[in-house]
């Protein structure tokens, strides 16, 4: 198992290297650079000054020289300077990463808390009114675009009812480290988190429902019934264990999906996370930040898929990783 994780991490290095190369080259291909983004339309800056700044930051070097310099610093933990925020990318990202992880975890937990019971109910009582109700909800959640639903939530619960804050991740007036601050963070999380979670349930519900319906007909379930196992135990001991397996294994991949989803959420709810920063950085041509965020997401995807494999091998005796 340790050997397996080690091997996967080792494989990750060339993957990340390739990813960074592609991102770097693509970023360079885009029109404009950090300087254009920072000074465009500013009449007080002359083209000569701009050129000087470019030279100073090494922006006129060939791309491979720039790339080499970037990699050299990156391995030491220095992801460069943000041109727009005028601070090291590393410190700029630190707080954002924490926020995004909090939001993603919140979405993940709430979506599973909703989806797993609903999936089980729908699967066990398939073709009853309970099932039909759940399936209907599921198709609604599948068909509704996130930005529409999120805006609606924001409008109703944020503006009209005023139950939840409409932006930010915490009330900055509250002293940090206190319980009140924790509650405030939670308060800020509810609206973006719920909006994300309620639409993230589709896959889990659908998969779980179908898998339970399939598993119900399997021979080993007949064996269980022929042993005189009570109906409830047939589900908890036999059917659910088998049907939840792929869901658990999917957890890792789910994480990768959340990274994409959080961009919308963070922008709509003005939640200071990676996604929001990502959009700002693209519009601001702040490529050091963009590259860093893509690298972090890429690493998260790779770790997520690895996590899936590890979880699966831990719970399914048929899969053993040496």
């Amino acid at each position, binding site marked *: 198992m340790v050997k397996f994780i080690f091997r996967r991490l080792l494989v990750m290095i060339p993957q990340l290297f390739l990813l960074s190369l592609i991102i770097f080259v693509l970023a360079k291909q885009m029109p404009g650079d950090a300087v254009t983004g920072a000074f465009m339309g500013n009449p007080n800056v002359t083209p000569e000054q701009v050129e000087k700044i470019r030279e100073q930051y090494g922006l006129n070097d060939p791309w491979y020289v720039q790339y080499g310099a970037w990699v050299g610093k990156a391995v030491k933990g220095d992801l460069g300077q943000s041109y727009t925020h005028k601070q090291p990318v590393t410190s700029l990202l630190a707080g954002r990463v924490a926020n995004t992880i909090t939001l993603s975890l919140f979405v993940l937990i709430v979506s599973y808390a909703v989806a797993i019971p609903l999936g089980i109910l729908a699967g066990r009582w398939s073709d009853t009114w309970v099932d039909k109700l759940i399936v209907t909800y599921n198709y609604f959640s599948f068909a509704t675009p996130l930005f529409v639903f999120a805006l609606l939530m924001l409008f109703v619960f944020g503006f009209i009812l005023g139950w939840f804050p409409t932006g930010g991740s915490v009330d900055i007036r509250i002293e940090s480290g206190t319980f009140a601050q924790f509650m405030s963070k939670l308060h800020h999380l509810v609206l973006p988190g719920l909006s994300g979670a309620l639409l993230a349930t589709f896959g889990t519900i659908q998969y779980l429902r179908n898998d339970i319906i399939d598993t119900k007909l*399997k*021979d*080993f379930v*007949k*064996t*269980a*019934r*022929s*042993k*005189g*196992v*009570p*109906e409830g135990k047939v589900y908890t*001991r*036999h059917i659910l*264990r*088998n049907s939840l*397996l792929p869901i658990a294994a999917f957890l890792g991949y789910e994480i990768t999906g959340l990274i994409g989803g959080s961009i919308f959420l963070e922008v709509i709810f003005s939640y200071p996370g990676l996604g929001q920063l990502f959009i700002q950085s693209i519009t601001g041509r702040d490529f050091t930040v963009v590259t860093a965020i893509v690298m972090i997401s890429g690493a998260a995807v790779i770790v997520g898929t690895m996590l899936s494999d590890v979880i699966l091998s831990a*719970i*399914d*005796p*048929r899969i053993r990783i040496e």
Partner: protein
Amino acid sequence: MAETVLEIENLRTSFNIKGNYYAAVDGVSLTVHKNEVVAIVGESGCGKSALALSIIGLHNAKTTKLEGQVNLKGQNLLSLPVEKLNKIRGKDLGMIFQDPMTALNPLATVGRQIEEPMDYHMKLSKSAKKKRVLELLEQVGIKNGPRVYKQYPHELSGGMRQRIVIAISLACNPVMLIADEPTTALDVTIQAQIMDLMKELQRITDSGIILITHDLGVVAEMADRVAVMYAGEFVEIADVNTLFANPLHPYTRSLLSSIPSNMTDKEELHVIEGIVPSIQKLDRGGCRFAPRIPWISEDAHEDNPMLHEVEPGHFVRCTCYKDFHFPEERVEDENYVTT
């Protein structure tokens, strides 16, 4: 005669197909005694598996209608609510399934799966259960019991898994066992081992066994009595020696002569004309085998044929057996309309 264990009376199992119920098991009566193996033999679609699942109550209640009686230890299993049936299944009534590759839960250890029926039917301590499992493993011929106890099904061969399935069915000393094609999915040498094992175990346990199979060889090796099933009905019931020495019903005779076995040499095998009728299109009033022996005159059959006891313990359905003979020449058999 030994004590009766299971008594099936006029069992009718009907499936809902597009709003109508059609009987797949159509009025079956059978008695199984202690220490007796009754084989139910027939080809696919004859209703033998539907019969097995009816006895143990594994049909989907929403789409299946069960009529008649299945009496075990003085209770009619068909009239019991599931909770009460669960007190009997796995305890007095065990089941052995066809495919050992799918009959075991892939995520539970062998030990857990054999212990499970004891959880519900026996008050045993944890260590007593384990002891019993190891005992059972030895009984079914598994040598390294303590190791297998901790293993998962995928780590074992098909033959080993079928031994586990048998151990599960025996866990609570059932008085009655239903074995649905227990050797069909296995290789010949493994099949022989499992057959010998079951004969051995039956001697020890004294339980009655209903053996569902399509293989007359398995019947000849294992059964005490045989019921030949065709289109939902028993067409012939006899003790095993009588059935093989003096088969009477046209279907039994046709079936026996279509097997390439030690008995037939290089000559042509007998072919049964036509196909097994679907339960929706079955003519239930007359002899159900009549369309497949068209060279036999219609007068030979009776209306609503009954089982006739032609000699003690030997029953044959319909009078047509008296006039039955094989056709001189094999008739081309593809002129019927396919559906």
